[in-house]
């Protein structure tokens, strides 16, 4: 049976062979692989791009003190971006499942409508949740807008839920029992203590006053960076604002009206970063447009 890290290796190899830059997780707290600048910023503008990476994704409100066999405060996504979306992307996606050892000749694979929207990123897309034998294993999204901007060309995003996939392939009933290493260290041995303690922090310890100050401070910092014309530091501040908001939300410290206002503030930063990013790339002459024969291929999916 496939271990957690086997899946990571299989997916990494598969997508690297199809011309993706094999990127690493972003070194800041993010809620999803989409927030990694190699997705959020790279899908903007005309430059082609292909990337794959694992992204630990934090959802403080989903934390369960390590007690719930399915829900986690932090889970791992394998994220792929193909820009522009290739015509045969569904077929290539199916191959990626086979590369993980899933024999689709004996499974039921379906694509159910599921449109995606990230209000804090000013982003939305159209697509499906991919269901394998009734289990959602991947989010498959054609991005239409990001940072409040219409996208052209269109990127397709594939987000594999690594814990779910591993559990499902082994029909395991508890995420903590899953093998991280085949026959060796388990997911629980790697992650359980982190889940317990992070839950305690999110729900009991997090200092609301400090986080609110942090949010405001980071917001100011992001604005300063944007004014100075440095996009990445500005975007990192926006990401940290977003995480502070998520912790405050899990802590139950955000009222309904405050919630709307805070989301808008994060969104404004994200939109500002997106616009600044496109301008900065334009100033550089959209370098990846000219690149040919590099890792970026817009051909038939076989990079």
């Amino acid at each position, binding site marked *: 049976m496939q271990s957690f890290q086997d899946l990571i290796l299989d997916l990494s190899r598969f997508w690297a062979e199809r011309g993706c830059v094999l990127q690493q997780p972003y070194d800041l707290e993010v809620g999803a692989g989409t927030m990694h600048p190699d997705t959020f910023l790279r899908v903007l503008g005309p430059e082609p791009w292909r990337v794959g990476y694992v992204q630990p994704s934090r959802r403080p409100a989903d934390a369960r003190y390590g007690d719930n066999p399915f829900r986690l405060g932090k889970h791992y996504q394998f994220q792929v971006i193909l820009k522009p979306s290739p015509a045969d992307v569904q077929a290539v996606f199916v191959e990626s499942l086979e590369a993980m050892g899933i024999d689709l000749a004996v*499974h039921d694979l379906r694509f159910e409508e599921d449109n995606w929207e990230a209000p804090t990123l000013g982003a939305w897309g159209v697509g499906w949740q991919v269901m394998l034998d009734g*289990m959602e294993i991947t989010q498959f999204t054609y991005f239409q807008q990001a940072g409040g901007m219409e996208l052209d060309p269109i990127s397709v995003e594939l987000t594999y839920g690594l814990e779910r996939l591993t559990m499902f392939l082994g029909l395991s009933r508890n995420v903590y029992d899953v093998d991280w290493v085949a026959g060796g260290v388990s997911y629980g041995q790697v992650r359980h203590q982190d889940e317990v303690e992070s839950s305690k922090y999110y729900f009991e310890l997090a200092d609301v006053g400090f986080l609110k100050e942090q949010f405001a401070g980071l917001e100011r910092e992001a604005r300063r960076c944007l004014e100075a014309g440095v996009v990445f530091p500005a975007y990192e501040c926006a990401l940290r604002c977003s995480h502070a908001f998520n912790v405050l939300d899990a802590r139950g410290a955000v009222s309904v009206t405050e919630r709307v206002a805070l989301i808008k503030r994060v969104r404004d930063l994200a939109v500002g970063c997106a616009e600044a990013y496109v301008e900065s790339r334009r100033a550089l002459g959209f370098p990846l447009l000219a690149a040919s024969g590099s890792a970026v291929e817009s051909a038939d999916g076989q990079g």
Partner: protein
Amino acid sequence: MARGELLLEVRSEEIPARMLRPALSQLEGDVRSGLEAAGLAPRRLAGYFGPRRLCLVVTGIPAAQADETAREVGPPASAAFDASGRPTAAALGFAKRCGVDAAALRRVTLDKGDYVVVEIEKKGRSAAAILAAVLPAAIAGLDWPKTMRWGAGIGPWVRPILGIVALFDGEVVPFELFGVASGRATVAHPILAPRPFEVRGAADYRRKLARRHVVVDFEARRNRLAAGIRETASAMGGLVGEDSELLDKLTSICEIPGVVGGSFDVDYLALPSEVLTASLRDHQSAFTLQSGQALLPGFVTVMDRPDDPEGKVRAGNEWVVDARLSDARFFFREDRKRSLEEHAARLPALTFHVKLGSYAEKSQRIRQLVQMLCDELGWSEEREDAVTAAGLLKADLTTEMVKEFTSLQGVIGGIYAREDGAREDVWQAIYGQYLPVAASDPIPRGRVGVVCGIADRVDTLVGIFGLGLMPTGSRDPFGLRRAAQGLVRIVLEADLPLDLDLVAARAVLLYGDRLERGGEEVLSHLRPFLENRVRHILGLEGFAYDEIEAGLAVGFGNLPDLRARVRALHGRREDRGFLAVVLAAKRIANILKDTREHVFREELLREEAERRLFQASRDLRAEVESAEGKGAYDECLRSIARFADVLERFFVEVLVMDENRDLRQNRIALLQSIQRTLSRTARLTEMVVDRAELRKE
């Protein structure tokens, strides 16, 4: 095979189930009207769809448009030829404009004299050529609820198009759309049968798809699934309930009608059956298995493949169902650590509307309203239970279960109240508070349920109207139309003599200073809004619009009374006497237009006919008043019908607009009094009567 047959298949990545049927009907309509506009009306048109394709089979399309001869008229013959009979410069210019040699000029005699003309043969265009323009326009022109672009900004369409089959009598109709060229190759199933194959026509297409297990006809697929689901259920020792909405959805998410059953741990049966059913239905699109009234620990759903050779599909679905039910049980246990009353204590933290306050405040208002309603209706025995139910009505909105299964709001509260040992009419009222949702739903059971259902809806309607947030067009974010519809149905079906204006006015007061509009203004908007729902519901009950308008014009406050009036009107629809009075009432209304009130004096009666009208009208008033007091509106209308002859005679023999002012004013006064009597049950002038029809009989 010159049958005039078109086969069109648009194959795409998976189209959302809910959009398939509307898209297919539009495609059918647009292709048909495109052909008709070109003079190529087809004989028959059939459509098919699955998640990955929309198909049309059209037969009896004429092979080509009819040929036409067009005649271009040039200069008069006298100016076209010179004395020696050679064409002039004018004639040559005309021939050139028409693109023909001077030799083609012919001389004809028209009404206005002799002219030269050119006759041009216009070949009708072939059906294939017409289709090559009609098809891509129809496909690209579909109105999807949400579209997307893909690749290098291609689109918009609902999902990327993968291939197009377009064959007219076996020949490819060539066109290109979104970078895809039409052809004769298709794919049955992307995983199980991914190799493209070519087709020759509709029959060949269906046969080759069927060989690869794809059933492209929706009804056939639905029937196969329904049969398969029954078989699987019975093999597992159970039955599935009727759920045609779920069956439709399942038919729309697969092209190969495979059925898979599975079981779950029997311990989950300790969960309320509503929770089990909702979890399986809403999250897994699966039917629950029943045996009699009891649920069995099993489910049945579909797969987009014919079989499950290694049991993987079953095992996978069982795993997911187990995870879902384990979640549901977790939520249930968490929720049950508190009583519903303790859940209600958390309502102050739950916002109903930012400007209208929390659900705790809403509950408080509902408590006041149900007391008022019980008092109005004289339901003193139910008063206490209604107050208890009102206090718990919204408590389940704070539960984990309702956060997870929003479709179970109300139901969950009802179940928890029952488990807490609440009285039956209390938990039933909570359970059924959102009824009716669909047209086929019943209204809440029992008096407590009825008053809670009314109070909750009136409170919402008044609150949102009080902020000036009336629904506009298709925008109705607070579901006010549904709330109003439910309110009107409850009042009508429970037959409650309630003055809704009064209830709404009380609801306005209970909001204190929270509303941004005055009470009068709220009611003046709410009343026509409710009237529209009344029109709709009475229309569904089979009453004609003029009957409803005539009834509404005299009174709205008490809905069962209104319906009784409308029903009486409906019953007199064929009564010639009554219809004659309706016509007379219209005549009276015309005469009385712009008149002032006058005092009637018996001594001024001159003519026999007016004397008799006066006496008859006195009798009529007495009869109508007495019948109306008993709510016997048909009796009122029958009395009115008997009044036809004397009225008619009056109009034949008496001139209302007499030269003598006193006589004239006296007759106007008499008619004014008659008009008041005639308008008590309904405003008769709203009724539409076909005079010709009436005279014929």
